[in-house]
Structures are given as structure tokens and as C-alpha cells.
């Protein structure tokens, strides 16, 4: 499997008046060619910061990449100059943002907004770029593309705008697409359409996708592999099947337990108690310990390393240590894990186990 992007020991901090906020504290992950990696976590877990760091879009000041490397081919994106980065942004790595209502320039026609990247990266003339823009609009499923290319963002609905945003991101056939919660601001039916579109486009164009979300339901639909983030670290990573059917980290259990499902009405939703730690002063030991009902003494003293469960599955919890007591996930979550049968087709779902 060819690694297209590899992030090693990434630290991102923000210097605020109160002190240094360590938003990302040593993240490692890689992205294989043609796959979709989902980064999951609650608000403030550092998933957006990680993805913005890959694009080098963290505003500096106050943000800075403190340490670590972002290997893209033979280049380290963390070390590139702004000029070199501009050549990569939009042409080799693209990004889709959360809110389509605000991520398009209100005073520029969508055609021009799509054309900008083409003119910049592919040296197209205006008329070539316009033709390509119409093609892209058709590709992302916008009817009457020839007419709509000259319209302004306010003339589009939310779902249609997100399609335009996707068209902008895919304009130059990027090798990596980072989707930062692209469906969060959309209603559920539109969400499904956008996910389906992303799946389709990935098949057609062979793009690798980093999909950032807090919604595990979305993950099941789109991802090949999952990385679960908590307090600026990846606490568990594995294939979709491994994360959904054999989760090992108590935080992953918590996420699965708090995910509503349509299948049954008698289950209760289990909330994770407490709130994430203050990253201005990250706790010693396992950052999840204060909220973890299975926490042991060592959790408050030492950070757990990543324990290997299989070649693709790792989790950072002391529960996997050989001396730890054997702990089973809560019954409700177990039941839920069984409920998610692998054969169950969800809209646009693909074979999540193909990389195992």
C-alpha cells in the first residue's frame, strides 16, 4: 500500500494571552493512496487543527507548528516556504470546509471562484478554465451548469453550495482532499447526497480523502480507516470494522455509545461524563482518565503508549497492558456493536474491510 501522506509526531500550539494552548500534541498517522481516512473526535480534540496544519493554513501568529513532520512525497510540508506551499494548496492537496453558507465569496460568481485555481495552477486561459468549470459543475451534479456558472453563491441552496465548494477543491485533480466536517452544516438528506457524491468522485478520480467529523454515522458510510482523536492525540486507530466491531479504547466506546441509531427505540444514549481537558495545561498521564470509568492509577501518572492489536489496529489505553484487568465494554455498547452488521448497506457505503 503506497503511503501518500505521512504525519509524524505533529505538535501544534497557539500562543494566547493566557499561555500556550497545545492543540495537537504528537499526532502520527498516514494516508494511503486512494483510501479514505476518517479523523473522529469531539469539538476541541484537535482534528481540524491537524488538517489545517497539513494545509499550512494555521494563522501565524498565534498558531505555529512546534514540532514534527508532514511528509508528502519526498517533501516535508512543515518546512516548506509559503511560496512553495501555495503551489501545493489547491493543486495537490485541497480542502473542503464545514459551512458552505460562508465558505464562498458572496461577491464573486461561482464560475470565477472555480476558475481561480485552474488559472493559477494549470495556466489555463480564461475560456479554457470556464469550460473546465462547467465540466466540474456537471461532475458534482449541478443541473444547468452552463447557466449557473455565472450565478452568485446566494442563488444556490446549502447543499448546492457544498457541491460548488467540492468542485473548487477538485478543480485541479488533487491527490489528497481534506474534508473538514463537510456535512455538519447540512440537513440529513443533503448529507447523504454529499457523502454519496464524495464516494463517487473518489472512485472516478482516485483521490485520497482525509475526512474529519464528529459523526460516527458518517464515518461508517465513507471511511476505510478511522483515527479517533482526543485532547490533541490519536487514541485509537484502525480499519472501520476494527473500530466499530472491536473498539478497545474507552473513549471510542463512549463515542459509539453516544451515537443515536434509527434501528431501535429502546436503547438509551450513553453520554460521556465531564468535558475535555484544558489544553492550556494538559493533564499528566492519560488525558481521558478523569472521564474514564475504567481508569486505573497508572492512567493519572503515565501516558499510555499505543498498544498494537493487529497490523492496522492500535489503541492508547493502559487497559491493553498485559497486567491490566480484563475489561469488557458496557453491555449497551456491545449490543450496539453487534447491531452494526458488516453486510448492512448504508447509503453509498463501501466495503470497509477491503484494507484488512
Amino acid at each position: 500500500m503506497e503511503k501518500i501522506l505521512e504525519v509524524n509526531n505533529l505538535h501544534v500550539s497557539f500562543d494566547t494571552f493566557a499561555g500556550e494552548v497545545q492543540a495537537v500534541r504528537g499526532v502520527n498517522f498516514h494516508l494511503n493512496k486512494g483510501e479514505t481516512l476518517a479523523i473522529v473526535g469531539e469539538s476541541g480534540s484537535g482534528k481540524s487543527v491537524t488538517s489545517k496544519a497539513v494545509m499550512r493554513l494555521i494563522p501565524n501568529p498565534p498558531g505555529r507548528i512546534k514540532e514534527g513532520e508532514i511528509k508528502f512525497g519526498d517533501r516535508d510540508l512543515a518546512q516548506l516556504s509559503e511560496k512553495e506551499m501555495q503551489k501545493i494548496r489547491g493543486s495537490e492537496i485541497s480542502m473542503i470546509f464545514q459551512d458552505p453558507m460562508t465558505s464562498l465569496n458572496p461577491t464573486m460568481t461561482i464560475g470565477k471562484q472555480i476558475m481561480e485555481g485552474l488559472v493559477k495552477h494549470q495556466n489555463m486561459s480564461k475560456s479554457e478554465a470556464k469550460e473546465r468549470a462547467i465540466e466540474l459543475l456537471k461532475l458534482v451534479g449541478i443541473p444547468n451548469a452552463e447557466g449557473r456558472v455565472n450565478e452568485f453563491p446566494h442563488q444556490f441552496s446549502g447543499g448546492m453550495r457544498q457541491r460548488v465548494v467540492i468542485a473548487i477543491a477538485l478543480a485541479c485533480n488533487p491527490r489528497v482532499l481534506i474534508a473538514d466536517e463537510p456535512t455538519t452544516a447540512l440537513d440529513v438528506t443533503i448529507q447523504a447526497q454529499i457523502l454519496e457524491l464524495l464516494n463517487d468522485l473518489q472512485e472516478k478520480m482516485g483521490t485520497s480523502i482525509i475526512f474529519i467529523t464528529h459523526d460516527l454515522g458518517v464515518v461508517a458510510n465513507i471511511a476505510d480507516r478511522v483515527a479517533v482523536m482526543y485532547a490533541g492525540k490519536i487514541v485509537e486507530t484502525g480499519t472501520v470494522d476494527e473500530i466499530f466491531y472491536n473498539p478497545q479504547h474507552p473513549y471510542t466506546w463512549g463515542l459509539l455509545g453516544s451515537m443515536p441509531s434509527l434501528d431501535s427505540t429502546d436503547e438509551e444514549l450513553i453520554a460521556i461524563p465531564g468535558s475535555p481537558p484544558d489544553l492550556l495545561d494538559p493533564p499528566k498521564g492519560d488525558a481521558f482518565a478523569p472521564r474514564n470509568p475504567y481508569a486505573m492509577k497508572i492512567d493519572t501518572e503515565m501516558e499510555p503508549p499505543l498498544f498494537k492489536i493487529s497490523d492496522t489496529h492500535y489503541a492508547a489505553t493502559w487497559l491493553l497492558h498485559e497486567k491490566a484487568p480484563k475489561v469488557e465494554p458496557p453491555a449497551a455498547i456491545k449490543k450496539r456493536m453487534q447491531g452494526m452488521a458488516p453486510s448492512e448497506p448504508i447509503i453509498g457505503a463501501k466495503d470497509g474491510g477491503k484494507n484488512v
Partner: protein
Amino acid sequence: MGRYIGGRIISMLITFLIIASLTFFLMKLLPGTPFNNQDKLTETQIVQLNDKYGLNDPVPVQYFNYMKNLLSGDLGVSFQQDGREVSTIIGERIGPSAYLGLQSLVVGTIIGLFLGIIAALKHNSFLDYGTMVIAVLGISIPNFVIAGLMQYWFGVKWQLLPVAYWDGFAYTIMPTVAIASIVVATIARFMRTEMLEVLGQDYITTAKAKGLSSTAVVIRHTIRNASIPIITIMGPLVVGLMTGTLVIEQIFVIPGLGEKFVNSILTNDFPIIMGTTLFFSILFIVVILLVDILYGIIDPRIRLAGGKS
């Protein structure tokens, strides 16, 4: 769009008539008549003059006559200048005022935008603070103080520029600076705030994510969006300019409309007061309409119904 402008013009006419009526009655509340401060006139002559100009008629009759003349385009004649036409007087006075007003507006807007953009891009730097100090000074120091200081230093002490009067470009420099100071200050402050606001918007991140250079991001995506609210303040700013000109024209002895306006009030020259007031009103009403139209051009979201482009 055409229909919209048509409707606007009708409401402008109504506004104009209301202003004309209000000014007329307010003016009638001024003490005295145009002739009672002229010592050489006898009682009989004053009565005769009042009779001649219809000033002995009851006020409603005077109002009716005035409005009738106004609607047929007749602004009347000056009481002080041998019955010369008001429109002629305005015509010969408008040149310096318009020149000064436009020059101040253009220069002030360009410098203001420039300072505001620089301040926002160099946020929290020396340039930013420097610009804001200039802006606060420009707003808080009255322009007649600036005018006086300039006359003293540039005109008298260093003899670089003519102290007053109206005779070529050199004579316009000091009055322009005095009038433009408030324009520069207001626009710089607004532009800085708007630029900072726009720079924090998601679509700026989208533009950066496309790989555009920071110059392209600023020019294509930031400035246009930031200037939308600036257009809104242009209306009031132009009014400020007009009133500012009144004082500045007096200080620099410029034969403009403002100077005429002030003198006409001092001498109760009713037709001139009416004429100049109405002239300024029309100017203001037209500026507001232009601002609204400009708004639609620069911001497609408020392009008006029926104006599908």
C-alpha cells in the same frame, strides 16, 4: 432596475417638496425682513420694496406663489443684488465649491482606503497604531482648526502656499487638506474594521486553500467585500463635506456657494436661502440614490428585484 429607479425618483420629488415647504416656513420665522437692516432706506421705501416682492401678503399666499414659481423652474431673484436671478448666482458660485468638494472627496477616499487597508494587513503593528492615531486626530480636530494652523505654518511662517483666495491649483491645496481630513479619518477607520472582519471570514480561508497568493486574496476577495459598508457611509460623508465646505470657504475666502449661503442668511435674502438650500438638498438626495445603486453593483446579493443579471 428601471422600475426601481423610477419609483425612487418619484419619492425623491416628494422629499424635495417637503424640504422646500419646511425651509420656506422656517425661513419665515427668521426675524426681520431683507430691507430693515439698510439704514439708508426710508419707511416708505421699505413698504414699497416689501410690496414689490410680495412680502406683505399673508404667508400662505407667499408660500403658494413661491411653490408655483418653483415648480415652473423659477427660483426668483435676489433681494440684495439688484434683482439678479438666483439660478444665475448659484451657477457662477458652484464652480469652486464643486471643485473643492470633489477633490477632497476623491483624495480623502483614496488615502483613507489605503490607510485602512494597510492598517488591517499590518494589524497590531506600528503602522496600524500610527494610522489609527491619524484617524482619531482627523475626527476629533475640527477642520477650521486644521485650516487655521495650516494657514499659519504653511502660509505665513514658511510661505509655501498661498494663505487664501482662489486662483489656481496651489490655492486649493490647503482647503482640500482641511476638508479631506475628516474623510480620510472616517474611511480609514471603517475600512480597517471591515478588512479585519472580512479577513476572518471562511471564504478567505477557501481562497487561501486554493493556493492563491496573499496579494490575490487581498485584492480579489477581501477589498471588494470590505468596501460594501464603506459605500453606506459615503452618503453621510458627502453631507459632512458640504457643511464642512461652508466654513472652509469662509476661512480661505473662496468665492463658492457656501460663502454665498452663509451671507444670504445673515442678510435675510430669502430667495438665495431657498435656492441654495434646495440645491444642497437635491445634491444630497441624488447622492443617496447613487449610493443605493452603487450598492447593488458592488454586492450582488442586493441587486434589486427585476434586475436579474
